[in-house]
């Protein structure tokens, strides 16, 4: 079997989570790679939606930004930014939203705003919210993709930019958030899913070669683990080939 990295496993895991025919709100970076990988493998009818207003983009190479020309050129329709948020995201038309972040907590809340200090005098100023708060609120399901580490998997966020399950089950309903929330947190070491009773993110799958102990060490809270975590199927030859071809297009584009 071909060797693969834990990042490749993470991307393939994310791609596999995308059902064929689903409408997927895609951010740049790993989500875009995963969505484009899915469209080239098991989900040829995946509808890619970028917040720049491109509905049904079918890029022949990985876009470098959410507003690349290749997205507009290949889209079913290019609409304005107010329209993408108001007519498409807000009403809950989008099946899957993809989020990443600098920090995540055990309920899938995400911070992309500030780290350390306080809001006015932060230690590190991050880019901010972008489309994330409303993607987290309104997509039917959310997938979070982040590499595990105690610095980013924290017991308490420095800032809540986007809401997962708030402080636990029932909070989304109280806040009026209409999507289901984060159904998977896909990491380099494995996959976390919300506990049906508490919504706390719980380790349900391990990446090939990863251990529960590694995962626990990489998380800043006492990680819950299901009785018998399954092991993710390693990337297939086809998945790896397509993924690497895709990534080659991005390096070519970045020249």
């Amino acid at each position, binding site marked *: 079997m071909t060797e693969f990295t834990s990042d490749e496993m993470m991307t393939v895991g994310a791609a596999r989570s995308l059902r064929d025919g689903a409408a997927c709100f895609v951010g740049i970076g790993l989500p875009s790679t995963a969505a484009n990988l899915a469209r080239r493998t098991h989900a040829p009818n995946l509808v890619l939606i970028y917040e720049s207003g491109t509905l049904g983009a079918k890029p022949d190479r990985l876009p470098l930004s959410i*507003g690349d020309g290749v997205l*507009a050129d290949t889209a079913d329709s290019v609409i304005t930014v*107010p329209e993408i948020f108001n007519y498409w995201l807000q009403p809950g038309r989008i099946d899957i939203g993809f989020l990443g972040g600098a920090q995540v907590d055990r309920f899938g809340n995400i911070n992309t705003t500030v780290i350390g200090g306080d809001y006015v005098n932060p230690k590190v100023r991050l880019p901010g919210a972008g489309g994330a708060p409303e993607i987290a609120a309104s997509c039917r399901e959310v997938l979070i993709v982040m590499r595990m580490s105690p610095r980013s998997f924290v017991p308490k966020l420095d800032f809540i930019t986007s809401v997962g399950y708030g402080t636990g089950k029932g909070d989304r309903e109280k806040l009026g958030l209409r999507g289901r929330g984060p159904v998977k947190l896909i990491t380099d070491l494995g996959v976390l899913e919300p506990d049906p009773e508490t919504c706390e993110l719980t380790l349900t799958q391990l990446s090939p070669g990863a251990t529960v102990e590694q995962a626990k060490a990489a998380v800043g809270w006492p990680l819950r683990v299901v009785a018998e975590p399954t092991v993710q199927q390693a990337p297939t030859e086809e998945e790896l080939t397509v993924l690497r071809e895709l990534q080659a297009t991005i390096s070519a584009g970045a020249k």
Partner: protein
Amino acid sequence: MRTQGVVGLARILRLDEAVAELVHDGDTVALEGFTHLIPVAAGQEIIRQRRRDLTLIRMTPDIVYDQLIGAGCARKLIFSWGGNPGVGSLHRFRDAIQNSWPVPLEIEEHSHAGMANRYAAGAAGLPFAVLRGYAGTDLVAQTDTIKTIECPFTGERLAAVPAVNPDVGIIHAQQADRAGNVQMWGITGVQKETVLASARSLVTVEEIVDELTPRPGAVVLPNWVVTAVAEVPGGAHPSYAQGYYERDNAYYQQWDPIGRDREKFENWLQTEVFGAGAQQDVERSAR
């Protein structure tokens, strides 16, 4: 919005003339362009003319806003995502927030959905917009322009954000005709809303043509809602202008070390904005 009673058609000006006339110290200025068609040349002309105390609005402040902030033009930034896309942070923006260099920078922070709706409300002549947004986030406590409103029919509680109505809205488009009608295509973001929400507007264009040919997906702004048009080929560089040139990804990467270091940034300003490079820009935009 066009001031009541002042009927006027877009005038075709040089970029330096247009900025001198339209952008004043203390103004609220929005330069929009969502990844595509970013009015970079206009932003750099504002630096060149040494405007101060601007309130800058932009959903996605990126390199040209890093430059404006680093050059000390801004006292406040209203935004929803600030970064160097695909590369990392904006270091001049961070230096201003974290260290008040070269001047303090106040921020008013929203989400994209909120900002898009603020522009739409501004374009629509409404004082505010309603959206499903911000619920449960810490933005609500930090940003006093996010409030709650109750639906008078269902009692449901939603977010309300105030309209933005900049003194000047600046965008870049592919084409204008000689009468000042503007056409842009590809990703058009909130550019129409920016012009319609603003008291005055400047559109820089790749070229001025005899006639605008209708195109799929094009947005047209008639000359009676535009204050000035300036022909600035390459005016969106390092972003792109669909049909004209591609995004200069290397520029975004090269910006990182320049923006990271105050001294390198100052050198860049002297050379590229106030120096010879600047002169080329002005000449390029001369008719």
